């Protein structure tokens, strides 16, 4: 097998393994009733986004987009309904765009905490915009500040988690790449 093909296989396998990990994170959140602590619809800890963010910065944005899209579709099939699918899709798109913006604009100034907070708030803005299509923009705008505050909290927590394990994660990704080169 050609080296290039080997790399592709490794990349595909790793992405799909991470997709499975992200799905488990989604399920874990489904079991974790954070809605009782913070009774706002749409608020989640975002554990799956830890995985997506790691792929985004350690592999590539393209891989992160693919895994994120598949995760949203699978989650909707397993736990959701058409409304939640639309909200998650729009949220995931906006979270992706905010991460892309930060990667382009300030790649070295902002740690994973800033990235996660921005992605979480981006996710919420995307959700609100999609919800505005279904419900009513005025209502949703009144709701946005609460979601943004929740986003600072949940994004900060997941970002802290990523900061703590960034080095280890990076070693995993880099090691694989080195092995492929041999």
């Amino acid at each position: 097998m050609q080296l290039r093909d080997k790399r592709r296989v490794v990349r595909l396998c790793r992405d799909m393994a991470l997709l499975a990990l992200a799905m488990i994170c989604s399920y874990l959140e489904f079991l974790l009733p954070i809605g009782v602590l913070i009774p706002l619809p749409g608020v989640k800890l975002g554990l799956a986004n830890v995985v997506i963010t790691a792929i985004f910065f350690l592999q590539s944005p393209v891989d992160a987009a693919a895994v994120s899209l598949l995760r949203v579709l699978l989650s909707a099939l397993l736990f959701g309904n058409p409304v939640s699918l639309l909200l998650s899709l729009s949220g995931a798109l906006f979270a992706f765009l905010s991460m892309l913006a930060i990667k382009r604009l300030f790649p070295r100034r902002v740690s994973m905490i800033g990235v996660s907070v921005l992605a979480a708030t981006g996710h919420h803005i995307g959700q609100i915009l999609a919800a505005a299509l279904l419900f009513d923009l005025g209502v949703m705008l009144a709701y946005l500040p609460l979601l943004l505050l929740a986003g600072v909290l949940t994004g900060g927590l997941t970002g802290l988690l990523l900061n703590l394990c960034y080095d280890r994660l990076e070693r995993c990704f880099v090691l694989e790449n080195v092995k492929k080169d041999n």
Partner: protein
Amino acid sequence: MKNAAGRRHSFGVGDGVVIGAVLLLSVFLLLGGLLPGEGREVEILAKGERMITLSLNEDTVYSLSLEEYHLTVTVRDGKAFVSETDCPDRVCLHSGAISRAGDIIVCAPAGVVLRVVGEEGSADAVAG
């Protein structure tokens, strides 16, 4: 601490700026939302359509039957809340009671929004 690629992975000034910006935006939006005063009526919207408007001044119980889910809205002591539902996530049940203009309860699975509307000329009339 920085890694080989030069990416920071501890809390830094940039993170503070991001968090500050988000907090500023939410405070700004909150101030806009706090302008309307005490609400007088609660509107029930299903999939964007207005179903009914209930007065907050009299105690009532109103049941909605939608395609998939059922919701019971109770108005008591000038506050409205979802008292019963068979939707799966039950977030609307945990949302508590609403009474101020602009307050909302959302039941996403059923596509239902409860919202308190204030007097004419409030921010709500503009947003609506």
